[in-house]
């Protein structure tokens, strides 16, 4: 009887038809809010009307040069983290996987730290994101060398662990050898993650790569669904596991590498968002992908708004806020997980 009741309640909440439109609206609303909120109060209506009239005022300048890139990057970075988190959890068949598990984010962070440390980012501002993306690319090459194309999932994870450890050590080395405390502080602050003072150039740099990565991940939908039944059964359903792995690793590297390159390390979004949304899509890995992209965008936009609205002296770093909110959420989710997963 109890089992029957549990079954009924599970089928009721199997899937929410309004989930994707609802999340889409939420993201749109948060983006508008994000455009309107900041140190200098501006009226969105008057800024928009000046824009339409083709006038260039201080308000339009603020809107286009500061607020718009920040809102766009918030949505893009959040979507990248959410989508690739969902893809990695589906691929590794593990709800505790996060997009950084294959070593991409720590390598991207190290790449950016090199740009900071060498002073390149002072003379050429885009050196920072370019360094990050270079780091992400390196991590994929390392993964390929360590795990290879025909590798098993386990060897992929182990290679990721090794790459993560090595990249973190190199980042610490850079801190260790920093010529002065200010340089070290700059690196630490950058790693904490932020969307402040980004420009449209940042958006133009990462948006195409993120979109391409997103398409790669979405194209793995059927494979992720099939993996629900294990690698062997997925293969019997005609899924080419080697190709799926390649798609997902590349897609994640493109999305997460770009995200880290423009915003620093922002934790927990890729872990918590898919985890939180999974019950609302009937636990289906493929359906979870678009939902997690929107959910990630919403969460990051909200966290970035919070950062700007909090009346605290120095602006809190975004990565700090997401981890502060994310870690307790994660504990709650862990408790739920024990009840919900099959043995």
């Amino acid at each position: 009887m109890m089992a029957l009741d549990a079954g009924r309640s599970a089928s009721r909440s199997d899937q929410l038809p309004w989930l994707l439109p609802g999340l889409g609206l939420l993201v749109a609303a948060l983006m508008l809010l994000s455009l309107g909120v900041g140190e200098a109060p501006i009226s969105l209506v008057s800024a928009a009307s000046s824009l339409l009239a083709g006038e260039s005022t201080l308000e339009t300048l603020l809107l286009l040069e500061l607020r718009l890139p920040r809102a766009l990057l918030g949505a893009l970075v959040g979507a990248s983290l959410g989508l690739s988190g969902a893809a990695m959890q589906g691929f590794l068949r593990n709800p505790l996987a996060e997009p950084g598990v294959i070593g991409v984010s720590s390598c991207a962070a190290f790449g950016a730290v090199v740009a900071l440390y060498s002073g390149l980012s002072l003379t050429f501002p885009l050196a920072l994101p370019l360094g990050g993306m270079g780091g992400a690319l390196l991590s994929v090459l390392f993964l390929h060398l360590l795990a290879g194309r025909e590798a098993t999932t386990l060897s992929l994870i182990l290679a990721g662990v090794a790459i993560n450890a090595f990249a973190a050590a190199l980042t610490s080395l850079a801190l260790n050898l920093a010529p002065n405390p200010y340089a070290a502080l700059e690196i630490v602050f950058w790693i904490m993650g932020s969307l402040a003072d980004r420009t449209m150039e940042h958006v133009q740099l990462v948006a195409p790569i993120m979109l391409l990565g997103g398409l790669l991940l979405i194209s793995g939908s059927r494979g992720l669904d099939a993996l629900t039944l294990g690698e062997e059964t997925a293969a019997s359903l005609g899924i080419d596991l080697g190709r799926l792995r390649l798609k997902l690793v590349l897609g994640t590297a493109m999305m997460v590498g770009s995200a880290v390159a423009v915003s620093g390390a922002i934790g927990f979004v890729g872990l918590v968002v898919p985890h939180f949304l999974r019950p609302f899509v009937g636990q289906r890995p493929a359906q979870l992908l678009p939902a997690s992209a929107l959910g990630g965008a919403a969460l990051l936009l909200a966290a970035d708004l919070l950062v700007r609205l909090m009346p605290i002296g120095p602006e809190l770093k975004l990565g700090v806020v997401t981890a502060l909110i994310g870690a307790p959420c994660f504990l709650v989710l862990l408790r739920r997980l024990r009840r919900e997963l099959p043995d």
Partner: protein
Amino acid sequence: MHISAQNIQVTIGNSRLLDDVSLQVHPGELLGLIGPNGAGKTTLLRVLAGLRPPSGGQVLYDGKPLVRRDRPALARRLAYMAQGSDIAWPLRVDRLVALGRLPHQALFRRDAAEDAAAVSRALRRVGIEELRERALITLSGGERMQVLLARALAVEAEALLADEPVAALDPHHQLRVMELLSQEARAGKTVVAVLHDLPLAVRFCSRLALLHQGRLIAVGAPDEVLSDRHLALAYGVTGHRGEHEGEPFLLAWQRLARKSAAAGKGDPLPPAS
């Protein structure tokens, strides 16, 4: 679909999992793959399903070897049910069964009505329609196995290869699943099942293939394959035979002294009974 395994070798490092195994499976038959633990049954089933390329020999499907580009087409023609119930996410039962329709779908090409009909047919055949909307976590181990069998049936393939499909089931459901497998065979499908239960194997399979230490030691009618000599050689047991309602049955009766219960590898073979 005719499945023909020719001189299959599978080696990992120094251990030989399958040694020169040749086996034909025909449409319309239920072939039981039997043998002691570690004999290579699962490995052979995976090779037959095209999931594991053999180190030597080849498998032909209707006379043609499997090439990479035909893999998606084979997925529509051959359904495989793995051992155990390893399911990563607690999907609802009907959605889990619907995964069997994946080979028939592409990113933008699917016949939703046909898929739904196939899922309903599969649930009905296994007799678990009432589980349709249950969440997987609320099911017992035996019920999960039935769901996975329905998943394999939902492929509606010409061939069905199942690894221990009755292992976790109670006697009622064991009989039900064995009846279902022989119905599938009678309907013209090619059915192979790995079985540990000798009475069920003898009663329901049209032919048996007995593996022992990676070698196929007998293929044929159940009573020939499970002769006293083969029982002693492969399992190290004696058989108790009888007849009930005009059908023969066989029970493993007594352990033979010279063979360890764990079907020890490398033991000297016991003398024929």
